[in-house]
């Protein structure tokens, strides 16, 4: 079920009513309702793939239970690897099997060996990467005794399948979300209205901004061979806006929906395009994924690499830089692979790993203020230049993210510089420029908050505040209807 569908507009009020008015006195029933609703929500796409979620739930719950009783380190490791094997196994079969088979075949064919690959004719289950990573974090944290493993199967099932964030995150940690299923949820007016505002802003981002940009992005990227450099640049900028509005819009709707049910999910985006350097960008973009990779891959990997490099420097380079560079490149390359089984995603990840390595090597670790231009209307010129430069780096990455192959991406970037003129053949409607400007102004003015609309207009007089909300809602209605999928569903 899509958030931006009539189905969800009917589904959620029913769940909300049952949740707060029918089963509100019984925690177990509330959790059970969440599980059932989540399975319906997911089953709307495919009932068959519900079995994967169910298996994943059963395996991780059983492993967690066993870990809670087991103190023997070897047996604990076996349990941990059992969970990793099954979870990554599902992911490997459904998402990566064909990619690896085809890649191996290509490599062998370079040496003249003809192999007919046995690829699988399967579709990728929606959101498999998201819920797999969520359950993995549970088992790993249980293994490290950072959390107490769940004893309540219904609560654990609700944690794994919680519908607002099931298919596209935020990828929640058990330490944050699981305990919320153990406590009775109390309806809070302020939290609920805040959730509604966040949902409103999320829909605006998705339906008005992202989907409007998507139409132009598709035209430019599908005809990139015939476009001038200026048009290609425009296409890349619009795609950068699209992917941010699309994905952060989904996160806003997910977080807002959860708040209406009394849950607090982690912030997933913190105005990433206002970042002053690439490190800051990754602290602000897809936070739940970047922190996942930081905690479960980057830090353990850095630790392991550091154990193997006892000297203070190698080839005149400080060991700490080598550790950082190796860990960054590996982590971000795998982050690229997480996004999809295609070489362009891997290249995109590698590119970001390279950016970070270079940045750290040149600039060292330089701390920047958490909120840019705090208590000021505008930022200074230096910050502005840094923001634009960071955006440019990210934009190059997005080109490789959007195309299908690395060579296509190189060709696209090449063409931007080969014919740097705007032609008459393509233009963005003035209305879209206005909408993007409005969007950016609200984002900039609300950059101190968890989401841009949180406090915007909150102190205005009621008619003005209502006018703002009505205008946003009206735009959503005006632009809605095409039911475009969220980009991150495919991951």
């Amino acid at each position, binding site marked *: 079920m899509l958030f931006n569908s*009539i189905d969800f507009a009917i589904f959620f009020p029913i769940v909300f009513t049952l949740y*707060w008015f029918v089963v509100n006195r019984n925690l177990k029933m509330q959790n059970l309702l969440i599980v059932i609703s989540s399975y319906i929500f997911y089953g709307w796409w495919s009932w068959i793939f519900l079995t994967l979620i169910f298996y994943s739930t059963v395996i991780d719950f059983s492993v967690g239970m066993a870990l809670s009783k087991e103190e023997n380190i070897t047996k604990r490791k076996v349990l941990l690897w059992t969970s990793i094997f099954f979870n990554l196994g599902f992911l490997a079969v459904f998402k990566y099997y064909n990619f690896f088979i085809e890649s191996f075949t290509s490599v062998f064919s370079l040496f003249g060996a003809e192999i007919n690959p046995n690829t699988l004719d399967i579709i990728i289950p929606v959101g498999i990467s998201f819920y797999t990573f969520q359950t993995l974090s549970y088992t790993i944290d249980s293994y490290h005794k950072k959390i107490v493993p769940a004893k309540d199967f219904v609560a654990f099932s609700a944690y794994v399948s919680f519908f607002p964030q099931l298919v596209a995150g935020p990828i929640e940690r058990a330490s944050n979300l699981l305990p919320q299923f153990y406590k009775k949820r109390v*309806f809070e*007016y302020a939290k*609920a*209205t805040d959730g*509604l505002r966040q949902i409103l802003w999320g829909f605006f981002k998705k339906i008005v901004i992202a989907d409007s940009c998507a139409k132009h992005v598709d035209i430019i990227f599908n005809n990139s061979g015939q476009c001038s450099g200026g048009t290609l640049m425009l296409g890349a900028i619009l795609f950068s806006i699209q992917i941010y509005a699309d994905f952060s819009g989904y996160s806003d709707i997910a977080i807002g929906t959860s708040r209406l049910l009394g849950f607090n999910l982690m912030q997933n985006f913190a105005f990433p395009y206002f970042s002053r350097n690439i490190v800051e960008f990754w602290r602000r973009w897809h936070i739940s994924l970047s922190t996942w990779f930081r905690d479960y891959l980057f830090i353990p990997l850095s630790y392991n690499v550091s154990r193997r490099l006892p000297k203070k420097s190698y080839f005149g380079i400080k060991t700490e830089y080598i550790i950082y560079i190796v860990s960054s490149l590996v982590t971000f390359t795998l982050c690229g692979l997480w996004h999809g089984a295609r070489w362009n995603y891997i290249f995109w990840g590698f590119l970001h790993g390279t950016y970070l390595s270079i940045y750290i090597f040149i600039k060292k670790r330089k701390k920047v203020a958490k909120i840019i231009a705090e208590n000021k209307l505008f930022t200074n010129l230096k910050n502005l230049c840094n923001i634009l430069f960071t955006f440019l780096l990210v934009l190059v990455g997005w080109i490789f993210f959007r195309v299908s192959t690395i060579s296509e991406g190189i060709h696209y970037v090449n063409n931007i510089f080969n014919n740097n003129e705007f032609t008459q053949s393509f233009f963005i409607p003035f209305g879209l420029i206005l909408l993007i400007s409005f969007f950016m102004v609200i984002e900039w003015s609300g950059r101190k908050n968890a989401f841009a609309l949180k406090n915007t207009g909150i102190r205005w007089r009621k008619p003005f505040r*209502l006018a703002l*909300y*009505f205008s946003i*809602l*009206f735009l959503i*209605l*005006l*632009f*809605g*209807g*095409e039911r475009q999928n969220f980009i991150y569903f495919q991951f």
Partner: protein
Amino acid sequence: MKKFIIKIFFFITSFAAFLLVPDFIITKGLQKAKSQDYKEWNEIYSGNIDANIVINGSSRAWVHVSPYILDSILITNSYNLGIDGYNFHMQYCKYREYMQFNTGPELVIQTLDITTLQKRTDLYNLNQFLPYIYKSRIREFTRQYKGFSFFDYYIPFYRYHNLSEIINTGFKEFFGNTGLDNGKFKGYLGMNSEWNGTFDEYKKANLNGVKIDLHSESIELMDTFLSECKKESINVILVYPPEFIENQYLTKNRTEIINLYSKFAEKYKLVFLDYSNNDLSYKKELFYNSQHLNKKGAELFTKILADDIKLRNINYHSKR
């Protein structure tokens, strides 16, 4: 919670009230428009047509029968109600809307084709109904097709979402005049087109012929229509305009369908003019596809039809 529910209720209600404003502007604007298919619907609802002869049917009515030629030969006032892409079910709806807002005609020329008594499932070109969705008959008939959702009918403005061109037209027409016109004259538009080859593909794909499934409710509706016309003392002639001869061989149950039309004519003592074997049906250069004559063909056909009406002394003169 109570406070939250009350506030949500008031928010939604006031937003729905707010939506009435753009809905009103766009709807009223479109009800003035002469572009797309709005012109004919608006002429119907203005109630100023009051034609002596009404041509009813599908696209085979609106591209085949020229009121200009009928008027000049028969010295009368005719109007073409042809509705593109629809079978008799929706043709009947348009006819009844005409009857509700205009004085009834003396004569109805009901054009027929091989699919008249089928019923499509989707609401083709549904934008034409947008400004009239509140009218009970339009609502009742459009509901019988896949097209509009529950929200389109009950939430103001919702049906216009994502239709920027139509919204633009509505606003412009409300505050002024776009000057756009669909170019039809009394519902008719001759097509200056050459043979487009769609039939050739259709023929290749259906070498063994095609059987037309008839829709029993549409057959009943045709019967109702004819009996209503009889009660209202409106003459009806059934007309089967020329159809490209090669296509006629491809319809397996064509004879059965033509016989059905003949039975209707027999039952209600109507004239049935079947031009399937007219010379025009053999001249490919007069068609742009197997079902539709081009402008030259349509004008030749209208002359023949007008002469036949004259010859048979069918009453079409207004007593008004």
